């Protein structure tokens, strides 16, 4: 790696992608004329963090989860309750919540990750719905369906407030999330995961502990969702169970698949498109839902691998023609 010339390193899709993302984050504020646009971008960033984690599970380990909104909700409410009702410092509340969610994901993940395909989907869905029901029912703590107010995030007396501050915080965390995900993918564990995706039995035969790896990725993706949830709660200053619903779980999976499975940047693009789309479609009023559904269907029919991999293939095909170079990794 080190002996490779820097230029080649830059040209590799991974590093190039990281740099491109960092560039976009650095330059985007030039185009954001008011707080409303900042707000949209912060929401995109938070969703993208969840999707980068979820993509590890869906795209690389090949395990579907229809319950990740449950982890997001658990993170959001854990932080909200500890920080707002019990007066914990937000950072401590977030850490404690993240640990608790990781433990929950581990305990839940161990038995249910033995399930395959749609049965796993059902089990994760059931888990998500149970989390949602607890949140709406235990209104003494959670405020019930109407939600609760959340104190602003603060670290050692410095209060994070305002869309612009949050923009940089979320931007940095997104870069961190992407970096972590990419490192995981390139590690031996990541290779084991990909082996799992193509054939679980095959992977076991060559000595990969399938169960252990699946649970590990499940926990990691749950942690990403939980942290994003905690941040979202503090950023919004108010949280309702809407973010823990089954529909939000579906939304998250859709973002991952839409952007392109097994592509970290695809997950980011998917989050960006699907978070912004409702804002753009607001002009359609009563037809908004129809158009949204049609866009989703159309994209998946014509770009079945998702936006980013489909376009990347297009470029690759072209550059292959030009240089005759061999294809780089997916």
């Amino acid at each position, binding site marked *: 790696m080190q002996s490779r010339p820097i230029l080649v390193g830059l040209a590799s899709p991974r590093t190039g992608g990281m740099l491109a993302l960092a560039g976009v984050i650095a330059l985007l504020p030039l185009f954001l004329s*008011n*707080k*409303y*646009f900042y*707000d*949209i971008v912060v*929401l995109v960033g938070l969703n993208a963090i969840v999707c980068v984690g979820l993509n590890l599970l869906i795209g690389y380990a090949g395990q579907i989860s229809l319950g990740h909104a449950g982890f997001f909700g658990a993170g959001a409410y854990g932080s909200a309750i500890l920080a707002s009702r019990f007066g914990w410092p937000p950072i401590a509340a977030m850490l404690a919540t993240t640990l608790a969610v990781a433990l929950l994901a581990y305990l839940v993940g161990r038995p249910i990750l033995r399930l395959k395909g749609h049965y796993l989907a059902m089990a994760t869905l059931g888990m998500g719905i149970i989390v949602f029901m607890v949140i*709406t*029912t235990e*209104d003494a703590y959670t405020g*019930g*369906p*109407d*939600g609760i*107010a959340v104190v602003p995030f603060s670290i050692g007396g410095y209060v994070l407030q305002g869309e612009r501050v949050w923009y940089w915080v979320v931007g940095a965390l997104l870069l961190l999330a992407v970096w972590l995900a990419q490192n995981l993918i390139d590690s031996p564990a990541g290779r084991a995961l990909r082996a799992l995706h193509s054939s679980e039995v095959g992977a076991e035969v060559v000595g990969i502990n399938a169960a252990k790896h699946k649970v590990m990725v499940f926990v990691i993706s749950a942690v990403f969702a939980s942290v994003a949830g905690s941040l979202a709660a503090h950023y*919004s*200053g*108010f949280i*309702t169970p*809407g*973010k823990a619903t089954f529909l939000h779980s579906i939304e998250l999976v859709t973002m991952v698949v839409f952007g392109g499975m097994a592509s970290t940047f695809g997950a980011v693009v998917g989050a960006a498109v699907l978070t912004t789309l*409702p*804002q753009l479609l*607001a002009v359609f*009023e*009563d037809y*908004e*839902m129809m158009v949204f559904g049609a866009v989703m269907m159309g994209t998946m029919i014509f770009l079945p691998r998702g936006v980013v991999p489909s376009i990347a293939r297009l470029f690759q095909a072209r550059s292959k023609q030009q240089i005759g170079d061999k294809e780089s990794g997916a």
Partner: protein
Amino acid sequence: MKSKQAGSSIKRGLAAVAAVFTLMAGTAIAADPIKVGSFLSVTGPAAFLGDPEQKTLELYVEKINAAGGVLGRKLELVAYDSGGNAEKARTFVKRLIEQDKVDVIVGGSTTGETMAVVPLVEAAQVPFISLAGAVVIVEPVKKWVFKTPHTDRMACEKIFIDMQSRKFSKIALISGPGGFDKSMRGQCLGVAKKYGIEVIADETYGGGDTDMTAQLTKIKNTAGVQAVLNAGFGQGPAIVTKNYRQIGVSMPLYQSHGVASKEFIKLAGPAAEGVRLPAAALLVADSLPQSDAQRSVVVSYKNEYESRFKSEVSTFGGHAYDGLYIVVEAMKKAGGTDKAKVRDAIEATHGFMGTAGVFNMSPTDHMGLDLSAFRMLEVKGGNWTLVK
């Protein structure tokens, strides 16, 4: 905004722009329009609230403009559909404030949406009239936030007073999964004691549930229950009412103001007979005595709405009517759209006759309705009637 886009290419677009300019020139108003922002649950589970609210706002903004606008300026309605999603509502309110730069906001069909945007309007200092029910919106008082519907606590009180007069002291509660349901359940449990009422059964049902006989059977078999109160809105209460009759419960059934529309009677059918609920006079507009001070307002709103949209009026649309006119009156009083002055004028609303009752706001009361605004209604012969 739209005219600019249309002008760029086709002839038809140009013609439209020309038409817009002629219109503007015709009315000879140089000033910018007054922007009224709104975010409503036009779709989603609370669509039965947001839909009539949006229709009402559109209808009356049009009417006010046809009559020359406010202070010589036209009103412009900027409305977004939040789908009942608090997160979406929050983003749309940012858009209203930052992007659309509205002068005032009338909206928020549900309590969740409203509470999610309260910090934003407080920070941006924009007068905001919420159309949602729960008491938390105005208690404690928030400087820039007002609301027009009766609170759920008032509904509980009105019902309990009626129960008291019928000598009921032990009741059962059944409520739905939504914010409205939960909040009202909490309020009712809170004030029950004050009226000497004891809740001895407390059941709930889920969203999209198709059958509540299990919960009602449990209530039926709870010894001592004298009446049942259902806090909920949408299809749930209709199913509860049908199941109630099906398993032959004979105790009186009370519903909340959340089903205060003719639609409830249509959905529940003959099972709705004898159901009581507290609601604004709007539902019985035609049977109000001529002497009733509210009559002219509610009859005119009812006729306008029903002739325009060919559907039955509901009290929910009425809340939007009240909100819009309170704002308009306040702007007239303030002599402009200065946000602080408009806010002060809204807070000083006194004796305003709306569809929900007489509004008397004050620095400590940002709703301004009292119990007299509620009437106890009963379904008789497939229609709402006043309980004497």
